């Protein structure tokens, strides 16, 4: 087994670190405070090709691999988890289904400008009554001549309102249940398509989360993604890949917690000694460092399997489960290590602890990841 990055991947990693440090980190505190979408950073990422990293050049992508893209999410999340999820939702949830299931015309029209960073993407599966049970879709799509008419509401959609292109799931044949769900490409600005207000969130506050509201919204027939009835399969396969992105986001958050703790415990003195001299603190740091390495290997393995076109569904679930739980556990410890200071907004660990929680919830809760892993292990 080879644990070395190639020179090309190394150069990418250095670039992501430099970009995160210089362009992303300096804004992270303020955009979290104000819940302000980082348009400026997103545009810069687009220009540098980050928004199309894993897609081939013919579709406007950079032609890098999944592992490289995953390192981008990791390094950017290490500086700002909200910016990290904007990237991950765009690439994994917005672009990838078109890359995998789109027609040549759909790729030309949507994927190319999305990969180039000219259009931002989003993914609308969750509904008020269809969360973990995504099959319970109530949004309906009815064919009427050359268009489908969409009615229904999606909830908690990342990049909602900011994105230009939405992958939306709806029931085309309720009698068929799971097999009656279809996927559509919907453009912002389509008549009958509006947004709810921005949600006020605990963490990743600079990312935008809104409802998508469809009222007699006409979607041209050619915007059906895949075939009628393919929707659930498209959603599940997309989420398999997306989970590696969220795992990388969690990994970045956990790494940031460790970075902060290493620095702080060497500086802060109590009993005339730096905190890093106390064994109780050292053990927390040791556990943190170990879990982060374990998480990184799981996350990178899932990415490499995807690159090798091997099955990775179970491995992606394991990576997301382990990385997100490690991020939650260790950001709590990081606040503990910082004492009262860690409870203050001026210290990054305060934000990290709030940001970590979402990684255990979206793109499948930890309970769902365990179901996927158990299902694969017990089959």
């Amino acid at each position, binding site marked *: 087994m080879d644990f070395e990055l190639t*020179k*090309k991947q190394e*150069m*990418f990693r250095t*670039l992501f670190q*430099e*970009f995160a440090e210089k362009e992303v980190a300096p804004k992270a505190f303020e955009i979290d405070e104000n819940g302000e979408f980082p348009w400026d950073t997103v545009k810069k990422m687009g*220009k*540098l*090709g*980050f928004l*199309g*990293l894993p897609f081939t*050049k013919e579709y406007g992508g*950079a*032609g*890098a691999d999944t592992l490289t893209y995953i390192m981008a999410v990791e390094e950017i999340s290490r500086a700002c988890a909200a910016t990290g999820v904007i990237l991950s939702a765009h690439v994994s949830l917005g672009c990838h289904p078109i890359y995998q299931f789109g027609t040549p015309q759909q790729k030309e029209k949507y994927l190319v400008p999305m990969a180039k960073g000219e259009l931002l993407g989003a993914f609308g599966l969750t509904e008020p009554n269809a969360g973990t049970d995504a099959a319970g879709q109530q949004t309906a799509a009815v064919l009427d001549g050359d268009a489908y008419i969409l009615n229904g509401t999606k909830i908690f959609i990342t990049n909602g309102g900011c994105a230009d292109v939405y992958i939306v799931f709806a029931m085309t044949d309720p009698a068929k249940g799971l097999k009656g769900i279809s996927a559509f490409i919907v453009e912002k600005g389509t008549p009958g398509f509006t947004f709810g207000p921005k949600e006020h969130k605990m963490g990743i506050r600079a990312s935008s989360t809104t409802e998508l509201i469809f009222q007699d919204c006409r979607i041209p027939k050619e915007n059906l993604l895949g075939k009628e009835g393919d929707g659930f399969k498209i959603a599940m396969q997309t989420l398999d890949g997306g989970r590696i992105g969220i795992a990388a986001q969690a990994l970045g958050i956990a790494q940031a917690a460790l970075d902060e703790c290493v620095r702080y415990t060497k500086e802060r003195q109590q009993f005339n000694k730096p905190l890093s001299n106390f064994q109780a603190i050292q053990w927390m740091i040791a556990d943190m460092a170990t879990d982060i390495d374990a998480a990184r290997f799981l996350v990178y393995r899932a990415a490499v399997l995807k690159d090798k076109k091997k099955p990775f569904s179970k491995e992606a679930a394991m990576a997301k489960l382990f990385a997100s739980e490690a991020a939650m556990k260790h950001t709590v410890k990081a606040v503990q290590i910082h004492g009262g200071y860690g409870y203050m907004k001026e210290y990054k660990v305060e934000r990290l602890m709030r940001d970590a929680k979402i990684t255990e919830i979206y793109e499948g809760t930890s309970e769902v990841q365990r179901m996927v892993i158990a299902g694969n292990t017990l089959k």
Partner: protein
Amino acid sequence: MKIIVCLKQVPNTNEVKIDSKTGTMIREGVPSIINPDDKNALEAALQLKEEKGASITLLTMGPPQADYALREALAMGADRAILLTDRAFAGADTWATSYTLAQAVKKIGQFDIIFCGRQAIDGDTAQVGPELAEHLDIPQVTYVKKILAVEKDKVVVERALEDGYEVVEAQLPVLLTAVKELNTPRYPSAYGIVAAFDEKEVETWTAETIGGNPEKLGLKGSPTQVKRSFAPKAKEAGVIIKGTAKEAVQVLRQELLAKHVL
């Protein structure tokens, strides 16, 4: 327009430690980077390429690992990269380095501008650029902090001085050395990195490729010998004498008398 950029791969001196016994740099485990001033030199070339159209050839003398620095510069947008690497080049001082670079430039052929960095953060001599211009017998402007105009047969630039700048006009072909005030180097793009590894090539040139006098290469061709290197003692803090000039002079005089300096 044809531009040559000379760049050097250097250890990231921010992360370098000095061995207190031998006084030499501990190079192991220190990441290598493109010499910072050379990134400004490259950025200037890239901006000219965007404004006027130009081809940019990179030139570096170094060990095989310097390939990485060249790829990074290719990723930023340079067109061609040449790595001068040969055991015969080893141990070169600035004179042998600039002779080697000059031979390579002659082999490349026609050019309009050579950009160098002001100085390398490891050697710090700021000699290679000027020496290279002398070997090639072309005009040079050092410490360029702004490019005012590039025309068919001349450049007009601002040259940084300690307390101001001068405007210098020079005929092409010319050698310019860049200071960091010249610009902000760009990030390589994702497209650029992929192209640098998958589409572009680094040409390797040896002593044989560049020809010239083998006696002038490497250690043999180096008149400078490093006898000893050491870390200077840290300076003690000075004393600031406050008050009006007249009072301060009085205090200073007393101090100097007390120390038998006067």
